[in-house]
């Protein structure tokens, strides 16, 4: 008798488990795979990106998920190395069977994953700047940040307005700066500007006064443009000030985080750079459609992490939102359908600007997404 009860109980438990399992499979989570450079030289891109994805996935799950399904996020840290990124991308696609890939914090890690993404056929939203990610257009590859070429164009446009025609370029020799340097060389002529000095430094150089002295002694330099991220631009800025150079100093969008101002200190006064609306939400015009989006994002991010928001966090936010919106429009996470819907993204208001993609434009941002910003009294001031 007692045995019978035991059996009965066991059977009931089993049935319950089966039922639960059945339910779970009915609403399988939407799997989002990300490979980011959370450590290594690009960690200040990857780290906020990772935090942002984690925060929003958790938040949406608390609110009941998307389309009645929970979100599941799988993140791997590629340390900024291309070969690692490629292996992790493969792992996400083959082993974790994710529905979408987000990531590649740098152009190198993104490009390393592109061949297998194209082969596997999975929507892939990159968070890196390089223009070669979306030019030429690759069927499955999209990106959210502005390209380095756009940053260069914005800066040259501003210089032209100020009547500057001879400039010096100083860039770091790692991925971001090198690519920015090459794009700058490509577009600078369109603005009637001539690069009369072209210098390079390594991201970890303790001192770049040698390169800057060379620039200082080059006749005719009317402005200096620095392309780089991390501590390098802060050292450039300090050395620039140390040498008593007085021409305008331009930085790229790579320094659009408060850390740069903190590190460079007073030397950063008067530095001009292109940046997304996210760094100056309060100064945007009330009619700017971006205003509510960036204000909310900044508030949420800063409340959650007690640290200043950077535009890089915004790239991850935009990537996630663009994917979720596309999935909602497609009504499923069918890879082909989601891809088509991402390509049809139109009028999405993100932290980076208005995004309208087409079959020939897998980024969908225009130059108007950038604002010229000047650093005054240790803060960003909108100046265009």
């Amino acid at each position, binding site marked *: 008798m007692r045995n019978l009860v035991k059996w009965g109980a066991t059977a009931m438990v089993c049935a319950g488990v089966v039922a639960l399992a059945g339910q779970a499979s009915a609403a399988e989570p939407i799997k989002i795979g990300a490979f980011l450079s*959370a*450590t290594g030289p690009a960690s200040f891109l990857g780290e906020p990106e990772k935090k942002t994805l984690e925060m929003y996935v958790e938040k949406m799950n608390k609110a009941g998920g998307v389309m009645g399904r929970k979100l599941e996020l799988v*993140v*791997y*840290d590629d340390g*900024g*190395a*291309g*070969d*690692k990124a*490629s*292996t*992790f991308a*493969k*792992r996400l*696609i*083959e*082993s974790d069977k994710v529905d979408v890939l987000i990531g590649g914090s740098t*152009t*190198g890690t993104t*490009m*390393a994953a*592109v*061949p*297998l993404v194209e082969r596997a056929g999975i929507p892939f939203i990159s968070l890196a700047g*390089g223009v*070669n990610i979306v030019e030429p257009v690759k069927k499955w590859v999209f990106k959210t940040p502005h390209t380095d070429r756009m940053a260069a164009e914005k800066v040259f446009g501003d210089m032209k307005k100020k009547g500057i025609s001879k400039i010096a370029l100083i860039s770091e*020799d*790692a*991925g971001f700066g*090198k*690519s920015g340097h*090459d794009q700058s060389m490509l577009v600078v002529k369109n603005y009637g500007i001539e690069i009369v000095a072209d210098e*390079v430094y390594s991201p970890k150089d303790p001192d770049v006064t040698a390169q800057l002295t060379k620039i200082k002694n080059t006749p005719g330099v009317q402005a200096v443009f620095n392309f780089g991220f991390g501590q390098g631009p802060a050292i450039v800025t300090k050395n620039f000030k140390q040498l008593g150079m007085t021409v305008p100093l331009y930085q790229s969008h790579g320094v659009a985080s408060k850390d740069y101002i903190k590190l460079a200190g007073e030397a950063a006064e008067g530095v001009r750079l292109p940046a997304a609306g996210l760094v100056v939400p309060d100064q945007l015009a009330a009619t700017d459609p971006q205003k509510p989006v960036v204000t909310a994002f900044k508030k949420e991010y800063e409340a959650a992490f007690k640290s200043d928001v950077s535009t890089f966090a915004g790239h991850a936010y935009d990537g996630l939102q663009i994917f979720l919106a596309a999935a909602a429009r497609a009504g499923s996470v069918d890879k082909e359908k989601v891809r088509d819907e991402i390509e049809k993204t139109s009028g999405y208001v993100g932290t980076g600007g208005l995004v309208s993609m087409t079959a020939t434009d897998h980024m969908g941002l225009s130059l108007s997404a950038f604002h010229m910003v000047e650093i005054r009294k240790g803060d960003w001031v909108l100046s265009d």
Partner: protein
Amino acid sequence: MALLAIVVAAAPIGFTNSYFYDVGVNAMFNAIVCVGLNLLIGYAGQISLGHAGFFALGAYGSALLTTMYNVPPIGALTISALVVGLLAFVVGRPILKLKGHYLAMATLGIGIIIHIVLKTESKFTGGPDGMSLDNFKMLGFTVMGDRMWYWVAGVLLILAVWLALNLIDSPVGRALRAVHGSEVGAEVVGVDTSSYKVLVFVVSAVFASVVGSLFAHKNGFITPDIGSFFGSVHLVTMVVLGGMASVFGAVVGAVILTLLPQVLASVEQYEAMILGVIMMGTMIFMPKGLLPSLLAKLKSREAGR
């Protein structure tokens, strides 16, 4: 040897998807480089902190020759290997006169110089953002997909091990061990030590270059990072961790250190700490490396019986 063949053949039973094959291929590629490097470090007793540079040269040689000059992949691989071999020969003579840490510094310098050149000459190499290349084609046959690469890598690994074992058992191998034991002693009894050292240096560099070429074709995209200082340190770690002067030890070390980051990826931020502890722990408790230490333990247990 037979055991290795069986392991290579049997491992895919546990592979449920092509990601596992991919990791398997990477592990075996690393193993081949390490078998070569182990000849230098383990048998000849000469350290090199620059072998990732040779690996990268092989990779970029293949990428450049196939994409820009339409050289067939096998030709590109051969030309790259020859060039790397020649380079190793030219720099090997003066460098291998150095000893210990000075040699480490010199090889490290060469690796870094190669890395800087690849990074800077973006007109050819695409700079830090990397460059892409095509599949490996030979005699109208295309190697693609992780499964096919797995078998190619497996066969090459067995070939490399066979070559290494033969080299060690040859007069050259005996001369090398004499160099390791006491260089002056070897010289006194008439061994042309520097020629032998250069020979091994060249052989190990060519191993790295060939694998680099194949790796480039397999991944379809390469960045200069593969030639960085860390790459070189990683390779040396594999050799030493697995067991110096043990061909199979190098294979074991390469496989473990390729798999470890994949296993640790799930612990995210603790990855570096755990990796560091494993490296320190292994070397403290098994200073001769994993395989030799384990074998010695087995033997002593049997003897005790």
